[in-house]
């Protein structure tokens, strides 16, 4: 071993009762590079992070920093040694200011008293150095998530971190913000800082990473330079089997128009939105975060306000009122934020599947026997993997949760099925299953409207794509016209 690595993980294993979470994992992070760690959810990425910073004690193997073995007892020690962690769920105090968050537990001052003037001055200096024009006195809760993420990085660098470990940093930020994040990472890489970048987003890896290690079932499967991999080869290693085509798209001749919206307006959110969806068709909605795609769909579903516009549903007029009304009119929607507006985490899969179906049944009592049958049938149909229908949905993986939610809606009759980011935060294997479910639905004649921020997904799955920018529809592309570049241009088009 000639080269000394900045951070090296050698044969690290970690077991929990009944599970071997890490099994002789090896990763070698070169100084001044970005090293991507890829794997499906549950592959052991998060455990790995916690083993590095000492939250978990490793069973065997070594962690070397600058060639010397280290044993951290917790995040405080690892931070002191120059390893910063940026978690998927950001650790910040929403009610405190930018400056206070930067200097949390490191406030400048004497004898336990915080020197506010000094702290604000230093914070401003740090922010300026990194090209961020935030007001240090602003409360964190008033900043967009991406800015908070940037702050975490800035904070890490300000306190002399040499290695920054990031867990899914782009899962909650927009494309534009991703660009800025990547610029920052590249600049810091230039200054010799090393990154361990945990992700499962393919396109990002090719943009930012130098090296890559793929983890599957707690084992490091393969390591190498990014240039040695292709998208397909990475996926093959991640899921452990070869995939011919990710998107099981089938050409289905479209039927009658199922849903048509004309001139939908909602003050301050979107304006003059017209689109239609035919039976058997999968229609995509592309655009940047904040373009108003979710808002349009939520308004149609009765979750958000709609000021004006006309909607025709299989030839009949429809006016959104509330979700109950939408469901009765056979408009269904899987919302974007699964945890917040999708699952009822503490309740069983059975209840999560059948809740809406009960709602449309008459009478005050439920048919519990039929409920069990329904839940079993639906979860078998969608191949939900769980211990049984009584498992609390909160304990399932993202992909299985999404399947349960799909099961909930597929029990209903549907004239329009809206899927808002149906594969967000779901690992590759489950994604493929969801894609094939969607394709099957289209084959059965469902009219499907799908919002996604992952361009390849839209390109792969849809028959037509509407593109939105700044609350307006800026274009509609047929499948034959699909091209990433064209969509991008429409998505950033200035409508004013």
């Amino acid at each position, binding site marked *: 071993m000639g080269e000394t690595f900045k951070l090296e993980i050698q044969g690290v294993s970690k077991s929990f009762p009944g599970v071997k979470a890490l099994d002789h994992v090896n990763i070698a992070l070169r100084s001044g590079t970005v090293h991507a760690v890829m794997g499906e959810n549950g592959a052991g990425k998060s455990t790995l992070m916690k083993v590095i910073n000492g939250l978990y004690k490793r069973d065997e193997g070594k962690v070397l920093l600058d060639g010397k073995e280290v044993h951290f007892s917790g995040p405080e020690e690892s931070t002191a040694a120059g390893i910063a962690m940026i978690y998927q769920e950001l650790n910040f105090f929403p009610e405190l200011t930018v400056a206070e968050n930067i200097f949390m537990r490191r406030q400048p001052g004497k004898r336990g008293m915080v020197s506010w003037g000094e702290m604000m001055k230093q914070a401003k200096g740090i922010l300026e150095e990194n090209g961020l024009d935030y007001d240090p006195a602003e409360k964190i809760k008033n900043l967009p998530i991406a800015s908070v993420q940037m702050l975490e990085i800035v904070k890490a660098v300000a306190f002399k971190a040499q290695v920054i470990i990031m867990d899914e940093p782009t899962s909650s930020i927009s494309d534009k913000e991703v660009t800025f994040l990547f610029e920052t990472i590249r600049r810091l890489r230039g200054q010799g800082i090393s990154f361990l970048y945990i992700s499962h987003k393919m396109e990002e890896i090719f943009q930012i990473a130098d090296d890559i290690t793929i983890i599957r079932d707690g084992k490091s499967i393969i390591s190498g330079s990014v240039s040695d991999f292709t998208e397909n080869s990475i996926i093959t290693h991640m899921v452990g089997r070869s995939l011919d085509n990710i998107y099981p798209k089938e050409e289905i001749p479209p039927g009658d128009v199922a849903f048509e919206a004309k001139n939908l307006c909602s003050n301050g959110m979107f304006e003059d939105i017209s689109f239609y969806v035919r039976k058997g068709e999968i229609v995509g909605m592309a655009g940047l975060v904040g373009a108003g795609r979710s808002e349009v769909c939520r308004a149609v579903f009765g979750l958000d306000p709609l000021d004006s516009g006309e909607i025709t549903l299989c030839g009949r007029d429809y006016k959104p009122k509330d979700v109950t009304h939408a469901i009765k009119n056979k408009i269904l929607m899987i919302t974007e934020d699964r945890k917040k507006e999708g699952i009822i985490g503490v309740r069983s899969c059975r209840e999560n599947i059948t809740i809406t179906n*009960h709602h449309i049944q008459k009478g005050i009592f439920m048919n519990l026997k039929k409920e069990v049958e329904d839940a079993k049938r639906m979860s078998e149909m969608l191949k939900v993997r769980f211990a049984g229908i009584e498992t609390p949905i909160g304990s399932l993986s993202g992909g299985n949760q999404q399947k349960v939610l799909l099961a909930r809606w597929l029990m209903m009759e549907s004239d329009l099925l809206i899927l808002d980011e149906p594969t967000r935060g779901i690992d590759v294997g489950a994604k493929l299953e969801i894609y094939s479910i969607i394709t099957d639905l289209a084959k059965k004649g469902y009219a499907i409207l799908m919002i996604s921020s992952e361009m390849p997904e839209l390109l792969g799955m849809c028959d037509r794509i509407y593109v939105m920018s700044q609350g307006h529809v800026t274009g509609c592309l047929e499948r034959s016209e699909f091209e990433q570049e064209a969509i991008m241009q429409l998505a950033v088009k200035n409508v004013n």
Partner: protein
Amino acid sequence: MKSKKIDIRKYSLILILAAMVVVCSLLSGNFLTATNLTNILKQVSIVTICAFAQGMIIITGEIDLSIGYLAGMAGSFACIVYVATQNLPLAFLVGVLLGAAVGVVNGLFVAYFNLPSFIVTLAMQTVCFGAICLYTGGQNIYKIGGFNVLGQSYVAGIIPITVVFMVIMLIITHVVLKYTKFGRYLYAIGGNTDAAVAAGIQVVKVKWFAFILSGVFAAIAGMVMMGRLNAGIPGEGQGYETDAITATVIGGTSFSGGAGTAFGTFLGSIIIGVLNNIMNLMGIDSYTQMIVKGFIIIGAVLVDSLSKRGKTGIKIMASSSDAKKSK
């Protein structure tokens, strides 16, 4: 993973109760007698009815602090109506309607105007108490005559009427929670209100109705209480709301909402009743009783929190050791 998951809370409560009964019968020869067991049931019945109401509200993630005072108010008003008319069904109906009316007001502010239930129902405490005191001028209502059949009579000669009321309310609560759509929505709303909205549940209506139901339950508890006391005493309901909270929490109802059962609440209430009873039988002084009760409550909440942390938690032992590891 085991294919069939066991609700550890349900069984742990029965085990705790069984263990308590064994220990108590060793401690006092008077414990395991028919009359004493009847006494325990009689003594817990009113709080238990309040606890069923509180349980339904806590399942939705809200709280109803007006229960105790509402019981005092509705019970006393029913006494007044009875004394004036000598018509028991009418008096009972008036009590129930008063409870429903207070529930309507609670629901208006909590469900419709989306105010915190803690504040609204706290405020309704004084409204209820003020209303009854204004009417009676702070005097109690005596000589309520036949009204006491609601609290002192026996069914079939041996079963105290209060216990009958408790069992009826237990069955109603159980059926509502387990077999009705409304009950299912309570859990859904408590589990995740936003998700319940997105699943098409009409959260405002459901919550509103829950508060009305809670008010009716509290009113019934109040009338039974006044019957048992053989007088209309407006202040007697004070504190029942907190005793009800204790019973529901010991019974496994989650304070964060979304979980809890009628039988759990029932067992929680019985456990407290047995505890009070054995301490009285043994002549333990009041101060020691307070300390013991306090720790029992903390212990119950601790079990609740531990079994939640050890997510799947099949056994109590396993879940507590899991909890240590995950720290």
